[in-house]
């Protein structure tokens, strides 16, 4: 379900799906923000053409990331690939919820 796009010039992209039952509510959002904030790269999440920073709780809460939603993770910066991998893992692990 995910395909990694190899990034030129320090960008990385990966498509993921929201798997956990309750979607991106406060706890998963906090987990995403804390994880993303550990990287220097700018990390963004995009759904249906709307892009929000993965380092903003309020942004993530407004993105309507319900179960089954398709999300694109993108990052720009020297540790972009690692940031994308770390966030994608959270989606795959259902934010340790279900």
């Amino acid at each position, binding site marked *: 379900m995910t395909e990694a796009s190899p990034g030129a010039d320090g960008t990385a992209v990966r498509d993921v799906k929201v798997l956990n039952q309750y979607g991106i*509510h406060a706890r998963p959002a906090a987990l995403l923000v804390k994880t993303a904030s550990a990287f220097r790269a700018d990390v963004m999440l995009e759904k249906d053409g709307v892009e929000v920073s993965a380092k903003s709780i309020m942004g993530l809460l407004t993105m309507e990331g319900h179960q089954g939603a398709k999300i694109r993770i993108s990052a720009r910066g020297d540790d972009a690939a690692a940031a994308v991998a770390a966030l994608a893992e959270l989606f795959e692990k259902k934010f340790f919820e279900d």
Partner: protein
Amino acid sequence: MTLTVRRFLDAGRAALDLGLLQGEAHLDRAVREPALNRPGLALAGFLRYFAHRRIQVIGLAELTYLKGLAVDERAARLKAFFESGIPCIVLSRGIRPLPEMPALAESYGVPLLRTHQITGRFVQMAAVLIEELIAPRTRYQGTMIDINGIGTMIEGPPGVGKSETALSLIVRGYSLVADDLAELRRVSSGEILGTALDATRFHMEIRGLGIIHVPSLYGVTSVRREKRLDMIVRLERAMSAADEERTGLDAQTKDVLGVAVPFFRIAVVAGRDISNVVEAATLNFRLRQLGHDAAKELDQRLMQQLIAERPRTSD
């Protein structure tokens, strides 16, 4: 902290009108059970279950009873009473000791105290005083402020801006309890009360200014003598993103004298007005006490929406 007869007497001189009749040499006797006892039954000869570790209060009833006994009977009862290991005796209502008492008190090392208060009132007030004396206490490094009735301890490393944060809160009309060092004690209701140390009460040290007397500058409402501790806010300079609370869903507490006190950590960053954040934290705490948890309520509403939005058949 052990309660000695001396501490009880010293604290009770003003508060309870206590005085020492005899036994100066024995004042360091420990009150092994910090409480009071009216020894009526013991003086009547029933010594089983006699609370002999407590402070013994002899009032008019005990005295009248003893006076009615035959002389040798009375001597025997009093001897048994004194040799049971009692820490001290308080004679209330200004009663004079019975003739046998001074010699017995001396030979068993029991100090004799006296108050002019009536017995019932003395017992009540002494119980309150004893509780004060034995309350677990500690000195706590931090600046304590009363913000809208919420006793807030601001702690953090030296130079992080505790006093400056407190000062801007005082300017906004909140009251200083203690700057930089507070004395905390746990009372029997399970609450923790904080107060300043006498030497520095109502003063603050502001870097670049020196020591200021807060009520002289900001008026009598800018200080408070004592306040219940409700929450602790720790200011931190460098804080990893992983440590910072982002949702407010996971309440943290810190153990103070065995009580779990709500605890918040705030990263101090240039350009952030910390006093605003501290004020908001106390307001939010108050809201939570009223039964509204903003973070939880938002999260529950969000989860309902997300459940409603997900496709019927999730693949």
